[in-house]
């Protein structure tokens, strides 16, 4: 979290993902878009640098960036996701990195951010109760 906002990093094999970033910002999150080719392979590194709450990886298989982050940093990841709903389910199950096929739209960014904010809020409420 930064300034009370969730931080989400986007790494797309082809350097895309700007629509996802726009959706994240619209929903009240901070989007960090990694530019350039093979950006998905740098996802874990940038997540650590930025102390991010979540990473979104996009490539043909939906696996590389998530697998790399999992293997290098032990981040809990779910890969080969093919829909936003599947991503939301993985997020609810505690994944820190979501690996999708190529999807670059605002809806994905918005819905994932809304869900992440809701999960963080729930976590804070539980912390207060304890």
């Amino acid at each position, binding site marked *: 979290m930064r300034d009370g906002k969730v931080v989400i990093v986007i790494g797309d*094999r*082809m*350097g*895309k993902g700007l629509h996802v970033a726009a959706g994240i910002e619209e929903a009240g999150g901070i989007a960090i878009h990694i530019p350039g*080719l*093979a950006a998905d*392979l740098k996802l874990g590194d940038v997540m650590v640098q930025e102390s991010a709450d979540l990473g979104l990886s996009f*490539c*043909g*298989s*939906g*696996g*590389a*960036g998530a*697998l*790399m982050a*999992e*293997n*290098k940093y032990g981040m809990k990841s779910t*890969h*080969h996701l093919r829909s936003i709903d599947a991503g939301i389910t993985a997020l609810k199950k505690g994944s820190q990195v979501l690996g999708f*096929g*190529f*999807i*670059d739209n605002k809806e994905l960014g918005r819905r994932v951010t809304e869900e992440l904010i809701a999960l963080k809020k729930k976590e804070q409420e539980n912390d207060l109760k304890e």
Partner: protein
Amino acid sequence: MEILKVLQKKLDLNENDLPEFEEVLQEVKGITEKYHIQFSENAELVFYAHIISLILRLKSKEVLNGKFDDCQKEIESSVISIAEKIVTYICKRYNSEMDKAEVLLIAIHIQAALLNRE
């Protein structure tokens, strides 16, 4: 191949498919070695995970979303040529047409490996 055992767990691969995957990965490994492509441990894992995903996509006739023509100019032609050899081999094996986007995706893995070595 040791890496295939790791990928079996991570990608939840069916035991019965492993001999087929191993054969393809060995062939691809031969091509990369011929052109002195060296992957780091993590990069090697995701490269071969990508190859297996490509095989699964071809088998299920899944087509990639999006157009990536604008990305081609950022990749060295020699790297594209190596990626074409890999995709040609795999597509031939699975009776599929070569998709330019698949070539680019593999080329990016190779280019990243070359850049990291420099």
